């Protein structure tokens, strides 16, 4: 009985240690963001998110693709990158063992709000993609659509036109 218990305990310890080892094994691909963790600007500004991708493994990694993911912090919904970045995905190809490559993403702030951006990298044969740390965007509204200017124009132009037309009509009558 003792032998059975010792066997079961040993097996459990080995399995647990194996799992622990598997979970703590560092991923071959490492993504680092070197630019600031928080980028601020006004709608319409361009910022550059800089980072690196490193193959920390012992073997070259093939078919590596990186892409961006942007989420609106208020709505908790992903944002369509259509107008934010011209390059939504970036195909890198092969990274040799120990090699580090730079990543640069030019981002166009389109709409006011706070956003979270992560870079995701996938390599051929990897079960799970690797993700970078989060970069926060704080985009303030651009007040170039000054509504204060439109009201005088919207009201003033028709009124000025009516005045000019009456003036012309009056002048014509006076001439006659």
């Amino acid at each position: 009985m003792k032998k059975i218990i010792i066997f079961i305990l040993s097996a459990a310890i080995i399995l647990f240690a194996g799992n622990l080892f598997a979970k703590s094994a560092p991923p071959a691909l490492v993504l680092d963001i070197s630019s600031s963790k928080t980028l601020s600007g006004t709608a319409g500004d361009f910022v550059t998110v800089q980072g690196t991708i490193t193959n920390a493994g012992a073997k070259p990694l093939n078919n590596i693709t990186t892409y961006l993911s942007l989420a609106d912090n208020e709505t908790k919904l992903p944002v369509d990158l259509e107008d934010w970045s011209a390059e939504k995905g970036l195909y890198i190809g092969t990274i040799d063992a120990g090699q580090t490559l730079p990543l640069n993403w030019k981002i166009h702030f389109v709409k006011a709000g706070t956003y979270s951006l992560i870079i995701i990298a996938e390599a051929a044969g990897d079960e799970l993609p690797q993700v970078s740390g989060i970069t926060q965007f704080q985009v303030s509204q651009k007040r170039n659509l000054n509504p204060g200017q439109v009201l005088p124009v919207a009201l003033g132009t028709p009124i000025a036109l009516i005045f000019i037309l009456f003036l012309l009509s009056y002048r014509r009558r006076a001439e006659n």
Partner: protein
Amino acid sequence: MFKHIWKKEIRGELYTWKSMLWLVIASLLFSFTSYLLLTNKELSLLDQTELMLLLGQIAIGVALLIVAIDASSIITAEFEKETAESLFLSPLSIKDFIFGKFFASLTLWAAIFIVSLPYIVVASSGSGLTFAFIGYVALLGTLCIAGLIALIFGISLIYRSTKNTLTTSLVTLIILVTPALFSSTLKNNAPSQFFSKINPVDNVFASLDNVLVDYKTAILGNWKFLLPLIIFCLLTIGFLTFAAKRFKNREIIKND
């Protein structure tokens, strides 16, 4: 001599305030559109260029409609009111007659353009595209409207009836404008793409889109849209010349 006809037409337009009420209505339309769009809190930076595009389309669209209606009656009215005969008995060539009427119709476009200027300036404030916006609305609008006037004048000289000319002109305008308002997904087959490339209104809207939304402000970058417009103008001027010669050869005008 054409200046005399031109001035006469403009004086006729300015005779009463009622005859210029359409200009006030056009400005009210611009006021409503720009106020509604500019005060929308949800508008982002990207939306500003799109509202500028919408405002440009409305300004040119309104001008096309008003000029089409005016051009449909400006020549035919002379026949219906029986004033054409006395006009042609004076030392007036058909060329001067057409030029005078042509510039009078084009002046209506100039009036609408001037009225739309404050709205264009306010709508494009801060975008850095104000001068490009004004310049392209003027250029594209003038080319498209000049071509349309020549086409309508040609029809007028053939029909010599306001009712028929107006109906044909408005139907032609609808044929040109409706496909230009279709989204690009509705233009994914060869015939619609071909029509889109030759349609002057489509080229006007596409060029404005190119300038305002894609920031391609150089003339060379818009050449593919300007060339069909120039060809449209030349073709309609050719048609007008043919209609004028046909009109003259039938000896309706004997003193030319």
